[in-house]
């Protein structure tokens, strides 16, 4: 019976081919350092899932942002857990993506034929940091507000274009409701979309070229 169901699905979805091409691939002898990429992917999914739960209660306006986060922490059942995971997951994701980059650097895995994988990877590192930067403002507390004030000021010190960048980031000369709205949109739509797109290409390239082997004296 199960075989019949599987065969029917396989005929239409090509499950066997998926298994052969995606899962049953040969790989060089593995190494625990090689798990950092998949750990980053896992954290991205976890951040996405907890983030979606948080948007159910979060309100991106200066009048309500702080109170809505308070409510998530105190009023919503297991809200503290969801926010706690999202909060610590963000830090851990930046850390793990960075160590992943270092691992690739040390084993020189960015060399032929994986140059593009590295390039996309740097894009992923920068977008991850962008997620951290935009997400930091959202609780609208003192730390968030002043860190973002200084952070956008630094971005505004670019010669010639500084003024424009500063106003584009803040939605005006000062931090305001517009800034929060902008950062929220960037944090939940813009950057995650970019991140997911880059990730798709990154994963495709990894499957295309296979994981690099740990270099020995021969290499």
């Amino acid at each position, binding site marked *: 019976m199960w075989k019949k169901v599987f065969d029917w699905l396989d005929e239409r979805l090509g499950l066997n081919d998926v*298994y052969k091409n*995606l*899962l*049953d*691939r*040969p*790989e*060089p*002898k*593995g190494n*625990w350092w090689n*798990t950092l990429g*998949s*750990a980053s992917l*896992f954290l991205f999914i976890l951040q996405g899932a907890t983030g979606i739960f948080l948007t159910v209660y979060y309100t991106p306006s200066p009048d309500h942002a*702080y109170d809505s986060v308070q409510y998530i922490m105190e009023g919503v059942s297991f809200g*503290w*857990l969801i*926010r*706690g*995971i999202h*909060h*610590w*997951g963000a830090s*851990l994701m*930046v*850390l793990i993506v*960075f160590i992943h980059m*270092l691992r690739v*650097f*040390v084993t*020189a895995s*960015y*060399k*032929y*034929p*994986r140059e593009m994988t*590295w*390039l996309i990877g*740097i894009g992923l590192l920068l977008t991850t940091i962008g997620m*951290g*930067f935009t997400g*930091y403002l959202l*609780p*609208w507390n*003192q*730390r*968030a*507000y*002043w*860190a973002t004030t*200084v952070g956008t000021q630094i971005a505004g*010190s*670019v010669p010639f274009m*500084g003024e424009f960048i500063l106003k584009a980031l803040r939605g005006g000369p*000062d931090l305001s409701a517009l800034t929060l709205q902008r950062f929220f949109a960037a944090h939940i739509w813009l950057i995650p979309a970019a991140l997911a797109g880059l990730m798709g290409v990154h994963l495709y390239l990894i499957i295309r070229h296979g*994981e690099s*082997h740990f270099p020995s*004296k021969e*290499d």
Partner: protein
Amino acid sequence: MNDETKKKINERYERELNRGERFWPDSIFKDLVVSLGIFIFLILLATFIGVAPEPKADPADTSYLPRPEWYFLFLFKFLALYGQIPVIGKIEWLATVVIPGVGIAILTLLPLLDKSPYRHYSRRIFALTVMGTVVLDIILLTIMASLPVAPNAAELAASTTLQAIGGLLIPFGVLALLVAIYLFRRNMYYQSTRWNLPIWITVIGSLAMVAMTVDVSARASFYPQPGEAEVATTLVDQIFAGQDLYSIHCVECHGDDGKVEKIEGVEGLEGKVISPINGHDVLYTLNDAALAEVIAYGRPDAGMNPFGKAYNPEGLSKSDIDHIVTFMRYMWDDRFEIPAEALKPLFPPLAEGEVPSYDVHIAPIVKRYCVSCHRAGKENNNYLMTSYEEILTTGDNKDHNLIPGDENGYLLQVIQGHAIPDPKDPSKEMIRTMPPNRALKPNVIDVFVRWIMNGMPRTAEDAAKLFVAPTTEPVTTPTP
């Protein structure tokens, strides 16, 4: 890279694949173990450490020291140290744009810059020493940025100099040397690893950087630690916080029940007619945001002073004002039901013979009834009551205010309704009865009497030692 090298690399990879493993189940097993470990780790962090509460954003509070998220701290420190450099330190965009920009550009274009086909570390000494120095510097700058700030100018200068040497000068020197050797004496990188000069430069430079950081951290361990700001998160805590703030800032004019309609005994506002703030007129017509705005910006036409930080750097923060509004709502607005816990008494009731302590009994009473006037900047004969030391040692009459074991100390006299006459002119009062507009409840006065008569213990333990259990008459059972 020519086709022959490419072919060699591909053949080499084929060989590795042949003696390798399968993605499913070998590699994915490791991935799943690590992901599961991360998931459990995150749940533990969320449960046992949680997210530190922070007060609400207050754009008017310019005294707040901004701190970025920890993974930006190294950049923050780098900018701060860079700003100390004479002349170029003033060109801000060099450090904020050019240096990080060049760093990111090199990182991005790495596969195009590093064209050598070799992957083993022994043939990549240049890349690894440079990256190693940069990463070590990032870690050390992060550590330096998380240390407390030096308490005085001399120490600050010493600490900043050490940080600049360890976090900026040495790494810059090491990197400059490594690049110079790479440009002019490249074969040094290909010598045996034991006699390899670039490695020695990196190791010695790293040790010096670490030593500087250890020194800076050791110095910082003697600095005063910044106090963690207490943030009321639960409703009950917020009501208590609001009540304490109300008793300090609002009671003088509005009274402790918000009923006052005519201000008495307040300099500058004497006789001003105001509306009571505990009734429907205020609580039903203003929502929380409007109430918070009245407190922050005042009502100049109605005599209400502004309390927000926009007018007064020492003023109330946004969170403080929100807590006062919460307190008013739950205390006086009949549409809100106050949680039973928030109605707990100010201090635990005293048993027969029990001695109260400052920490448990006196501090909350003083905060509620006295600190409103007895704090810096108010007219109070210089008698401040915000801490144990102040209560015992400040004031124009400090030798007479509290006398251990003596009922005739000024404090006990005035709270029991006996004003202290001026010694020069007995018809005048030197100290009025306190608190000025209402009498304390007898149980509160009892706490003060017991406390002072028993030598004013500070902690609950000290007070417990003075506890004398009331001697009860031995019960004589009548013999049949």
